[in-house]
């Protein structure tokens, strides 16, 4: 359904993604692990055209396009089927929770207001925040803001949602509520590409886990294999250092 081939990206002559290829099938939940600076965010941003790749192709739901040279209409067509959840939520701060969700539906999709609100309320309901529909982002906790952001992505009924460290900016006690929403989304069959440092989530929810390091995908495998029998020395090191740092994980 989504296929990335030979994606390359440099920043100021520094190679950040060196020939990354990745295939995602419908219903896949792919978790992307990797040390800081390994190119995880850049990967998601290139696929969503928030950043322009230097080279690579994207095959997505029948749209086949060059990741470097895609024109505006192609970018719009790709984004139409793609949701993005940011590390820092990026809710529209001048709008209520409800309007954050309806805005894309009414302005971009041209849905009538009533229909947009019906869909937005359904999405807010699914993230457990229907009662906060009239709250502004500044009146919500980080966890609540992130759940509204997930509702905003869901309401547009995308074919895949990209998550860039959705819980990294949250206080530890708020991480669980966001992961729970994501877990339910995965159970409902949403295709997801999740950059995360939550090993438990990766292990329990994903259909495939992959490790990025130095701009390449070092290893990818189903989680049970990835976590118990990693094939690459680099993966073993990464999991080892991670477990040492986060003593409570496994």
């Amino acid at each position, binding site marked *: 359904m989504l296929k990335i081939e030979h994606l390359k990206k440099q920043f100021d002559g520094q190679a950040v993604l060196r020939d990354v290829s990745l295939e995602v099938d419908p219903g896949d939940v792919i978790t992307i692990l990797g040390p800081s600076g390994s190119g995880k965010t850049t990967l998601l941003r290139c696929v969503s055209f928030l950043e322009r790749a230097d080279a690579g192709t994207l095959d997505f739901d029948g749209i086949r396009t060059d990741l470097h040279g895609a024109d505006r209409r192609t970018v719009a067509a790709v984004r139409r089927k793609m949701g*993005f959840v*940011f590390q820092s939520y990026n809710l529209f*701060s*001048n709008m209520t929770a409800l309007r954050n969700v309806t*805005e894309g539906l009414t*302005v*971009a999709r041209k849905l009538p207001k009533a229909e947009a609100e019906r869909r937005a309320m359904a999405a807010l309901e699914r993230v457990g925040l229907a009662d906060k529909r009239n709250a*502004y982002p*500044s009146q919500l906790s980080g966890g609540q803001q992130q759940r509204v952001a997930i509702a905003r*992505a869901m309401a547009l009924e995308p074919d895949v949602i990209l998550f860039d460290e959705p819980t990294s900016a949250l206080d530890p006690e708020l991480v669980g509520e966001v992961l729970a929403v994501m877990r339910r989304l995965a159970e409902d069959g949403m295709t997801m590409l999740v950059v995360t440092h939550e090993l438990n989530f990766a292990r329990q929810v994903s259909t495939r886990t992959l490790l990025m390091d130095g701009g390449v995908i070092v290893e990818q495998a189903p989680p049970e294999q990835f976590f118990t029998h990693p094939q690459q020395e680099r993966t073993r090191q990464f999991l080892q250092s991670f477990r040492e740092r986060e003593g409570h994980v496994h």
Partner: protein
Amino acid sequence: MFNERVWKLLADSLWPLLSKGLTVTIPLTLASFTLGLALAMVAAFVQVAKVPVLRRLARFYIWVFRGTPMIVQLFIVFYGLPGLGVYVNSIPAAIIVFSLNTGAYAAETVRAAIESVPVGQFEAGYMVGMNYLQIMGRVVLPQAMRTAFPPLFNTLIGLVKDTSLAANITVVEMFRTAQLIAARTYDVFAMYCEVAVLYLLFCTFLTWVQHVCERKLEAGR
């Protein structure tokens, strides 16, 4: 110093001064500020949106009007242009100069306010399918205008006082009216103090309006 005659003069001049304030100074201020603000939005937008040519034009305009005295600009337009065969009446001349000036200062305020909106707001907008102009109009500008509100209001209050410069190009506004009375009665000190108090009242009123508006804006957040 302020004997009975002076007090009577002050009382008699109050209405002539105040009425000029209400019919000339305030309309002049509001007209210039409104036009200036519109100009500022355009000048700020073409810079932020990096519109070729226009953004350079905007920089040039801001550079010229922030870098020259307003009184000199007034003289150029009112006394200078006729030498080139262009005649502008005093009030339009004043409005042109005041709005161009306000526009130049407010453009920088608005530009800084737009740039203070996190780029993540744009990215979120793109990902829900909005285009640049939709994001600008519905997400970024509303946030920017809130940030820009206090400094813009400052500019407005400054403009109330600056309209007194129009006295130099024969506009009979509040200050010019005081000058005329002082020239006739020789009560220079009393007249200028009186007009100063009236400007102070106008500005105090505006400061109060600013506080009320800011509290409203805060509540909506």
